[in-house]
């Protein structure tokens, strides 16, 4: 076929095909990424172990392991347990510290062509600021604050479950860096929208949700909790409906972009989050059973767009909201918001 006199026409067809390739670029405030499929903090370490099968320059962004001012050893005892359609973890933010990141992982991630979102953890406002002040555009394209780890007291839920603390921390970090700033929220709160608004008011460029849900499992043969710390974070497809509901709520309540995460394992999952209002999505524990999940999700989104002849992935963002909004405006939509905003109002 290629040697046929009609080859030039095939070339034109190929060009036309290329022209129909949807634009997957998304902008989240000051951060523009090549596509909306990211890998989540704590589920990718720094990517070294998987880069030979999952090229990092094909991902929308890599969220690094939560990185502290100094190395943290993580939690003792059993750290992971499978549960129905998901898993519990209590890693405890084991990480090699920011100085190691600056020396080894950051330059390596850059050499791989990754868009880098450095996830930051600390035990106090000062510690978060200390990490963020060390991050330069050479080793970070954006910062994501982890204020929601269910497995450490300090730097985890202590910040993520107080609206006031969330505001104070976000504002302090905002003043310490010019990098695009995201804050990753906990689902272990009564009204997640309040936290999203606090983050927006404090000057964050975007909000990521959700982190893992607090959970536990008991080994009935040994008659004791499975995890070394008793409680841990539940993740995986089991939490997706909860995550999706929270993303929907937050996307309707703030003007800053939302990054959706929670049980995403397939393109359909990712499309749901985009349609709920997320501008990008993160893939977390699905990576453990399928390290190629991000590429499959990306290809699935691309195929969906082409099938519907949509030019840009951004057309999907919040797309499912318009149907609801229209019905609400028509006055017939009481059934569409049981309990009102956040389902708790």
């Amino acid at each position: 076929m290629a040697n046929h006199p009609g080859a030039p026409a095939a070339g034109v067809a190929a060009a036309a095909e290329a022209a129909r390739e949807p634009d997957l670029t998304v902008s989240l405030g000051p951060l523009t990424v090549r596509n909306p499929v990211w890998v989540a903090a704590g589920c990718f370490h720094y990517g070294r172990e998987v880069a030979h099968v999952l090229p990092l320059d094909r991902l929308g962004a890599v969220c690094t392991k939560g990185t502290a001012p100094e190395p943290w050893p993580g939690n003792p005892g059993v750290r992971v347990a499978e549960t129905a359609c998901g898993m519990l973890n209590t890693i405890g933010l084991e990480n090699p510290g920011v100085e190691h990141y600056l020396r080894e992982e950051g330059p390596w991630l850059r050499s791989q062509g990754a868009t880098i979102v450095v996830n930051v953890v600390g035990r106090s406002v000062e510690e978060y600021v200390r990490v963020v002040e060390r991050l330069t555009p050479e080793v970070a394209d954006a910062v994501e604050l982890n204020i929601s780890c269910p497995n450490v007291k300090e730097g985890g839920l202590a910040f993520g479950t107080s609206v006031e603390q969330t505001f104070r921390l976000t504002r302090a970090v905002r003043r310490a860096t010019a990098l695009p700033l995201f804050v990753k929220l906990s689902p272990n709160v009564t009204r997640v929208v309040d936290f999203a608004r606090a983050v927006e008011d404090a000057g964050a460029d975007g909000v990521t949700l959700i982190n893992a849900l607090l959970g536990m499992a008991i080994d009935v043969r040994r008659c004791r909790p499975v995890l070394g710390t008793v409680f841990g974070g539940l993740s995986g497809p089991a939490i997706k409906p909860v995550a999706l509901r929270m993303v929907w709520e937050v996307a309707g309540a703030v003007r800053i972009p939302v990054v959706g995460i929670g049980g995403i394992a397939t393109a359909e999952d990712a499309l749901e989050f985009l349609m709920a209002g997320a501008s990008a999505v993160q893939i977390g524990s699905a990576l453990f059973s399928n390290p190629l999940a991000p590429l499959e999700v990306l290809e699935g989104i691309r195929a969906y767009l082409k099938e519907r002849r949509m030019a840009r992935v951004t057309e999907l963002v919040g797309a499912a909201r318009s149907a609801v909004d229209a019905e609400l405006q028509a006055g017939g939509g009481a059934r569409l918001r049981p309990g009102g905003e956040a389902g708790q109002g």
Partner: protein
Amino acid sequence: MQSQHTSPQQAGPAGPAGPDGKGRREAELEAEGRRRAPWKPLQARVAACRPLEGGWVELVLHAPHVAQHARPGQFVAIGLRPSWPVGWDPFLRRPFSLFDWDPAAGQVAVVYRPGGRGTAAFQLLSEGSPVEVLGPLGRSFPEPVRPGFAAGSRLLLAGEGHGVLVLAAAARWASRAGRRVRLLAGGPTRSAVAALERLAQPGVELELLTADGSAGRPGQVARAVEEALSGDAPAEVWASGPEPMLVAVKEACRRAGVVAYLNVERPMACGFGLCMGCSVPRASGFGYWHACVDGPVFRAEEVVLDGEPSRGSRGGCGGGR
């Protein structure tokens, strides 16, 4: 199927560069032969499913990449998704020690006994079933013949329960390399010894022990190791089994001044260095090893096992409740 040893491999994953000279350790491990392989995600098919004594099942998979790169001590992570209609349950793959492999046929064998939520689903497999395989994963046992461990020197392998599986592969490998190999295999009772009928092999002196005497002589493997060390001691011991047995073997080897390598198993979510779940406390230095990329084969003195007294202070931050 005949296990065959393959030549040293090119690097796979980019390898960790830890805060504490992990890069240097990597070089040392390579020299010793405790190697990793370039793991890959593969679509594999079940070539055979064979019931074994005691309720164990041998699962033979057509997985040429694993068969060509495997070394004893390494493992595979097997999943049923998405090729099997089981939805998202079980969510995680299951790690299995490599029991046997044949590079020419492109086949690898693992052995399991249906029990937990994962292996219960594996019972649905039959010849031709599609499965997903990641591998080979983890670090192997050291090269059997290497500086300080000449051909002809004695190697004692000690395993209990499903821990014997990885040693069966190691026994063939070391015997072929010229080591004089003795394999102590046991468990509480006959049915607890995995692949019992497949453990005997040419060139390997096999001795069975069970606590209740239902197979081999009555006794415990760890105790038999102590006896072996008290006489004309072997040059080294490789052990695999329940943690209390590993603790006892480690202590016996320490007292006798004999080098020991342990196959240390931990619950793991991924098996290839992303989740940090399979932590094993370091005996010296900061924090934890991870069984999937630093092990599962460790030198005994590198690790603190469950039930061993931990070394006093460990960096005090990040600890949970």
